[in-house]
């Protein structure tokens, strides 16, 4: 195996690891969109708050990392509930553009509030996880951990969706919301559960991302756009489509970044997205209706 092949393999593996985290990111957004038909523009800002939560709990208050993570997941889940109850629920009957603008307003509110409260300095956990060296390739432990946790979380969500009555209702509501009362389903309750779940997934993403990235008030801009593009590419609301699109994007970023620069990987990924919007505007996994 030539030296270049090893780099390529390493890039593919890192792409795979990145894909797992991106898939987790898009799952939360997709769930909320599929079920409530609302796009949480401020989704990545919930992740930003979660990352700050981790920073304060672990670095400032010295909570054990697992405890900090659990608290963070629960708290961001509650934030998701609050976002639904306070902002989305009153606007459910409003025009989609108004709902979009409202969550956009929440985005700027959270960014500004974070700037005021936490300052604009970059902060991190000060935690250095080892880098594994396997067959001449370097794979960071934090990425492996993130990948594993994301995969476990997605399996749990899958089991929830396919094995429980609440999960069946979540899938059903995404297909025909008007007749849900005929099934005896209280749609408001399912909306709240979904929002809490979407928030909790953002919280978990925060725990995993804070292991690799510094947190600052605008960190949402790093993850937000790519999360949306993945959801759109996989057809908004289609959980399986988002999953596949996440890995496609991650490989483009990782392998594309190998030949030039990491930043170029993102350029390729977004260029790919624009081209796909012409070729398949309904998304990769569009359903024939």
């Amino acid at each position, binding site marked *: 195996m030539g030296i270049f092949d090893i780099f390529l393999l390493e890039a593919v593996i890192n792409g795979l690891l990145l894909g797992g985290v991106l898939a987790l990111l898009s799952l939360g957004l997709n769930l909320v969109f599929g079920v409530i038909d609302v796009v949480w523009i401020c989704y990545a800002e919930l992740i930003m708050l979660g990352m700050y939560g981790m920073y304060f709990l672990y670095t400032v208050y010295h909570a054990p990392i697992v405890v900090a993570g659990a608290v963070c997941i629960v708290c961001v889940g509650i934030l998701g509930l609050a976002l639904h109850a306070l902002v989305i629920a009153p606007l459910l009957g409003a025009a989609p553009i108004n709902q979009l603008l409202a969550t956009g307003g929440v985005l700027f509110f959270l960014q500004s509030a974070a700037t005021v409260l936490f300052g604009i300095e970059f902060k991190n956990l000060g935690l250095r996880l080892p880098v594994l060296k396997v067959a001449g390739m370097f794979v960071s432990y934090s990425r492996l951990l993130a990948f594993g946790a994301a995969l476990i979380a997605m399996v749990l969500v899958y089991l929830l969706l396919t094995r429980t009555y609440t999960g069946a*209702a979540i*899938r059903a509501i995404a*297909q025909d919301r008007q*007749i849900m*009362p*005929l*099934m*005896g*389903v209280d749609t408001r309750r399912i909306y709240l559960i979904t929002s809490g779940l979407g928030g909790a997934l953002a919280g978990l993403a925060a725990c995993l991302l804070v292991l690799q990235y510094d947190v600052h008030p605008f960190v949402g801009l790093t993850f937000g756009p790519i999360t949306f593009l993945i959801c759109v590419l996989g057809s908004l609301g289609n959980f399986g489509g988002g999953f596949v699109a996440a890995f496609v994007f991650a490989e483009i970023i990782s392998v594309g970044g190998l030949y030039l620069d990491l930043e170029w990987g993102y350029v390729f990924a977004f260029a790919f997205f624009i081209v796909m919007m012409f070729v398949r505007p309904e998304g990769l996994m569009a359903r024939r209706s």
Partner: protein
Amino acid sequence: MLELKAVRAGYGTFQALFDVSLEVHRGEAVGVIGPNGAGKTTLMRVVSGLIRPTDGTLVMEGVDLAATPAHRIVELGVAHVPESRRLFPRMTVEDNLRMGGFVPAARPKFRRQLEVVYELFPRMRERRHQLAGSMSGGEQQMCAIGRALMSEPKLLLLDEPSAGLAPVLVEQVFELVNRIRASGLTVLIVEQNVQQVLRVVDRAYLLKTGRIHTAGRAAELLASDSIREAYLGV
């Protein structure tokens, strides 16, 4: 069992039902017939709570339906098979049936009730892992009725069960209504297929532009000149 008195309902400023009064007794099959746009579907939606009445009273076994949240009406024993079936197309037949048995009281009985539905529709057992949206219209109608039966209702509301089906399947649907009745269920059925529905129900109401125009025993309506002229074309 079900009693509507002077019910008014509509969509926004459009009023679809004007002072509709109607009764369904336990064990009966009652039909509501009438032309397109007469308010038949609205009537069904008012009973199952999808639309709230603006006036009048709606009582099911002593419980005021107008004051019951829509998602609690199923628990009172009312199951609605909506117009054009409205299955969850990207869920399997069995998952659709599971949704029909969503209410807490139905969950422990899921397996048993599933058997009841599969006995009634052996075809659904064969197709249980198939996506509901990929089945034929007739099969989807079976699945929709099966879904409604999963909650073990006392009153079954059927909205245009024969719509969009081939003539041979229409026969089957009405034959099915007879079998469902025989199992002791009370049925309220809305149909455009006047002649055939009048052969399976005990009584029927003729709804015209949101008002009850005529009511009577099915046999009498079948024989009445005005119905014959207007709907049977003879």
